[in-house]
């Protein structure tokens, strides 16, 4: 019987490798965000608990022009693009958020979640069916938690780290695509670096001036 540590290491490696095989969807996701931004839409991110959202919002070296739905932004507008992270294929709350977005015109939805349900735990279609680009996080509906003898219930899910990683890979595609279209996006300057206030004022002005 392999130790939990070895199982964790092996699943971590395997899942990271698996993400690479889904680069076509990751590229598509980046392109969708670019389309939305160039058309004047907002770039939004959401996940229950806001772990993934807070990993990229006001993050030093992350995008300046990204907002968290239900954290700062209270309602969707026409043209919005949303990155929605989830640990389940068909969580009812996440599905409700996706439908809320879809009720507006010209929206783009990128989901990062398990692609398919593992069993009849939820009713209705999976989250991926509502998405323009559905990126499977490769973790299954138990969030990549481990079932081991001696522990009741899954332990140490890996989905958080995988969702973070996929989210940044999508944003890499977005940044590069925006640069190629002559619109290099504004970055958030690390709050701990010297002259943060001065740099932040410049970055804010740039983002406001150019809109990205």
């Amino acid at each position: 019987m392999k130790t939990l540590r070895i199982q964790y290491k092996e699943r971590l490696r395997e899942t990271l490798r698996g993400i690479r095989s889904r680069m076509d969807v990751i590229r598509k996701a980046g392109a969708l965000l670019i389309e939305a931004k160039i058309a004047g839409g907002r770039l939004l991110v959401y996940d229950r608990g806001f772990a993934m959202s807070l990993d990229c919002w006001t993050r030093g070296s992350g995008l300046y022009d990204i907002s968290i739905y239900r954290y700062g932004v209270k309602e969707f507008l026409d043209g919005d693009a949303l990155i929605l992270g989830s640990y389940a294929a068909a969580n009812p709350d996440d599905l409700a958020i996706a439908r809320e977005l879809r009720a507006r015109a010209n929206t783009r939805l990128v989901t990062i979640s398990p692609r398919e349900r593992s069993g009849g735990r939820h009713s209705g279609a999976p989250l991926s069916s509502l998405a323009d680009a559905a990126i499977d996080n490769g973790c299954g509906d138990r969030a990549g938690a481990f079932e081991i003898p001696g522990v009741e219930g899954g332990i140490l899910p890996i989905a958080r780290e995988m969702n973070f990683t996929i989210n940044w890979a999508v944003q890499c595609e977005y940044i590069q695509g925006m640069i190629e279209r002559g619109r290099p996006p504004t970055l958030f300057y690390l709050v701990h670096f010297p002259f943060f206030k001065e740099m932040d004022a410049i970055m804010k002005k740039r983002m406001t001036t150019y809109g990205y």
Partner: protein
Amino acid sequence: MREPSSRRLFLKSFAAAGVASAAGAVSPASETGARRRSGRNTPRGTTKGLSYLELLEGMVEDLLAESSRDIDTAADICAAAITSGESVFYTVRGHNEPRCILEDRPGKPAFLLPTETTIDPTVFSRGDVLITERTQYCAPARERGVRLIGILMPFQPQKTRGQGIVHIDYQGPWMEEICDVCIWDRTPYTVGAMSFDELPFKAVPAHGAMDGIILNLILAATVDRLLAKGIAVTVT
């Protein structure tokens, strides 16, 4: 147009590398595999998203190859504390650390206790363990007899890693000296890990995932030790 000679190309590359290094664009972090796999010099046909994934995989491989012993030491410390009835805390402050512990998902070992966002050192008892990225909590915890496991991330003052421009006047105490064991998260002090033309500094970090992976590796190894001793492990 005449092609530049290989000697001229070499000198040009060498000069560019020197300038980048002097400007701080190359950090101590990049002396490892993270540099070899960094987003710089993206090969033709490779997109930045793929480069980022390769970079993160490289950081994980470096961590697994170079920090296994430290993860063992950290797990030994945690398991010994739990076996003795002491507590294992983890600091929750910043972007992702609180969510790492408290967010709405199952699977956290119940023995791991989140601190408040601002730590009152009196919560600690002698023999407790604190896993932290935050330098400022180490000395007060140590005074209470707490054993310390440090996760070194780029914008906390560090003695031997990422000697950049943050906390330039910091004189200590250093995590590397005060903690029982430290594990570096492989993130360069630039914080951003990827270079893009036309952006003023490196973009796209990785320490949110890396710090979570380090914590989970410590917890996994701790669970192994507890189960081997016949101590029950429950999850939230």
